[in-house]
């Protein structure tokens, strides 16, 4: 999993590429740590390159969404592939994370 974090004015663009699984879940959690700080976050996550996530990845996304909510910010995930989207649907994450 490669992750790029780009600041564009008030917005934070995140580009995900690859798989989030057992082998790299801890690294991913560390990689997104910069997104867990700061006031009024506005985070836009491009998921077009994310080919797979296990429950480990879901943990990180829920932690991130909770953090964004607590800081009265907003977050969207976009361009999710259908199979990854199904994982978010089944687990109810589609209801708590804005997926466009």
């Amino acid at each position, binding site marked *: 999993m490669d992750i790029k974090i780009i600041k564009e004015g008030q917005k934070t663009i995140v580009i995900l590429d690859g798989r989030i699984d057992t082998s790299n879940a801890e690294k991913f959690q560390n990689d997104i740590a910069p997104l867990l700080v700061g006031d009024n976050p506005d985070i836009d996550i491009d998921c077009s390159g994310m080919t797979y996530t296990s429950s480990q990845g*879901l943990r990180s996304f829920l932690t991130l969404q*909770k953090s964004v909510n607590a800081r009265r910010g907003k977050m969207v995930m976009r361009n999710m592939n259908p199979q990854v989207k199904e994982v978010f649907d089944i687990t109810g994450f589609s209801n708590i994370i804005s997926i466009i």
Partner: protein
Amino acid sequence: MKKRFNPIKDRASEIIEFLMDSPDIPQDESLRFKLRLSIEEAVENVVSYAYDGGIGWLEAGTSLDNDSLILTIELRDAGTPFNPLEKADPDVTLSAEERAVGGLGIFLCKKMMDSISYRYEDGNNVLTMTKKIAE
């Protein structure tokens, strides 16, 4: 085919790839996604929790029925007796604030596979998952 991994500490990825490389696993990408996810969650459970410190073995295997329609994945370990299916499913209607972080692994297995069963046999935990892979 099946193989016994011993010890299993830090070897989840290797065990997952062993199963995914089995000739019993179909090539269809959508099926492979579901199978990989189920295998990963189930293997990760054993590697992380079955033994104190991960010192112990896991036997991982795949098989097909006579008509090659139904794939069976079986995981066997001699760790602490534990039935992962007894755990209540998460409430997927809760808000982000109400949701606990974690507890989704076996739930995903249940959703992705056609059946999942557990038995304690000869001092072993045995988890069996099946999936229809052809018409």
